[in-house]
């Protein structure tokens, strides 16, 4: 059964224990940063930061002040664009949910970075022999029967690890049980073909103003991982068609030319 994380941002207190736990488990170095007016730091995901909590202060004149905290990491898509993009199959989705990466296969072409609709895979730019880095869904921990480092460290259960179908049910139960509290859609349920990271929010990501930061609301439900597959499924037919057309035309045109020159002679 496929595992997932339910990220209920209404319960997130922005403590960033998850961020540090991720660094700790994955042995990622702390970087030298500078002050950030939003308090978010590091300011971007990169090869040393697989996850990060976005802080959004929303103050409408006259309205209540809101402060939203949204954890970001790889979505672990059900039909991952990254995996479908990778020419050597270095990225694959495990049946249990994690979309994992094989250091030894990767050629460093960075097509996965281009393809991921959530802008997740990051490159070790500072290295002379760079590899791709991204959240692993702690596949190594899961293999040992443990939950991901980030979910295990979340004090408020804003991150809930479990079976995807059960978590989806729970998400919809929460939406139903607290009318008006949640934005009535689970981001990741169908987004981009569905993902293992499921978000409950109090407003749409559009409204929170982070749709350009890896939380796009215009992705639609179509599985992004299928775009490539679709094209590739046509390849053999195109090859066959072009091939037979070429051969056919070759002989046809040759024959026509022969006939023509014959006619010339006969004249």
């Amino acid at each position, binding site marked *: 059964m496929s595992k997932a994380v339910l990220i209920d941002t209404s319960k997130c207190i922005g403590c960033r224990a998850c961020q540090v736990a991720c660094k700790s488990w994955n042995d990622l170095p702390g970087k030298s940063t500078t002050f950030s007016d939003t308090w978010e730091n590091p300011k*971007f*995901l*990169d090869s040393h930061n697989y996850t990060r909590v976005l802080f959004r202060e929303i103050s409408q004149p006259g309205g209540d002040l809101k402060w939203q905290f949204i954890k970001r990491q790889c979505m672990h898509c059900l039909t991952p*664009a990254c*995996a*479908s*993009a*990778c*020419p*050597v*199959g*270095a990225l694959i989705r495990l049946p249990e949910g994690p979309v994992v990466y094989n250091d030894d*296969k*990767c*050629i*460093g*072409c*960075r*097509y996965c*970075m*281009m*393809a991921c*609709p959530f*802008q997740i895979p*990051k*490159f*070790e*730019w*500072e*290295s*002379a*022999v*760079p*590899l791709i880095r991204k959240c692993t869904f702690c596949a190594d921990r899961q293999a040992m029967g443990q939950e991901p480092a980030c979910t295990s460290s979340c004090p408020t259960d804003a991150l809930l690890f479990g079976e995807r179908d059960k978590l989806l049910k729970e998400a919809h139960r929460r939406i139903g049980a607290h009318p008006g509290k949640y934005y009535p859609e689970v981001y990741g349920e169908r987004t981009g073909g569905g993902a293992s990271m499921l978000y409950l929010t109090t407003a749409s990501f559009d409204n929170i103003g982070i749709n*350009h930061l890896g939380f*796009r609301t*215009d*992705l639609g439900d179509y599985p*992004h*991982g299928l*775009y*490539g*597959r*679709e*094209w*590739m499924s046509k*390849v053999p037919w*195109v*090859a066959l068609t*072009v*091939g037979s057309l*070429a*051969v056919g*035309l*070759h002989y046809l*045109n*040759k024959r*026509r*030319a022969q006939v023509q020159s014959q006619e010339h002679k006969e004249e």
Partner: protein
Amino acid sequence: MTQSGTTPELKRWYPGEGKVTPFRLALYALVMLGLISGAIRLFFGLGATTNLNDAYPWGLWISFDVLAGVALAGGGFTMAATIYIFNLKKFEPLLRPAKISAFLGYLMFVIGLFFDLGQPWRIWHPMIMWNPNSVLFEVAWCVMLYTTVLGIDIFIMALERWQKHDWVKFFRDIYLVLVVAGVILSTLHQSSLGALYLLLPEKMSDLWASRAIGPLFFTSAVIGGMSMIILESIISAWAYKRKPEMDILPSFAKGLGLVLLVYFAMKVTDLYARGATVWSLDAPHLAFYFELFGCVAFPALLLYFHEVRNSQKGLLWAAGIAAFGVVFNRFNVSLTSYGGYRTFSYFPSLVEIIITLSLIAGGILIFDFLTKNLPVYKSELAE
């Protein structure tokens, strides 16, 4: 292959080689710089030497060396198809230079890619590590195979040069297989290079994010190839003090005009069908207008005129603009379009630019070498 000396019985096809001109010196200097930059790039890594970043993982090398380079090298398969499949034998004189430049185009691609990859020495991985869902996997295989095909072609020329007639005959007998393979492979990867961008519709401007990007890339590659053939024919004639094939070029150019028109129609239909926002005055839109009207419609219009088609200068301009249009399109797709919503910016670093320039320089030098040493402009095997 040998220089003069080892095979003294062979006469040179063209005189004047070995002469050191300032232009050639500049080319050598560029190649030297390129080699140094390449070493630096390999030693210090991509992050330190390029301006690529997590927001712009693909930059100049992909836009130019790969996308544009391959499109401009489209002349090889276009000519092969023209001659062997459509049986338009009169264009034969254009075939061999086209093959050479195609080969060089792909060589550029491979070398450019080598520098672009994070793990260059794993460039062979796609051969044994398969992901049949990946467009890039397909591109990798096609390019690999097609370059081999082109390589064989060049090899045949070499065999001719060495006068290994039996071998040449053998290849001639199976030549159709090579042609068909080349055409299939080209069709596939020329369009697949565009299809790479099918995966990221949300990151691209409406203007270029088309579901029909494959056929569009294919068609524009034909334009790229044909324009380059015209340009090469004229420029090399000037360079080698040869007469350009003005007997066939005008009618070939007519073909180019036709393809441009087809391409223009495709673009417009595509935009209309997708309901893209066509009219606006921001930078991407201006770039788009320039690409479509300036570099597709305009050369098509130029080529409509008999006077243009029959003048070297006219051809040079029309084909030049069309070729530029293809390059510009590749940049637009991969950079202008992609940059839209990001706070980051990208401009290639010196190393990127130098390597790209040195690849062009190297290409010209090899072209020069090959045309001087292989039966390119005059076939020994004239039927």
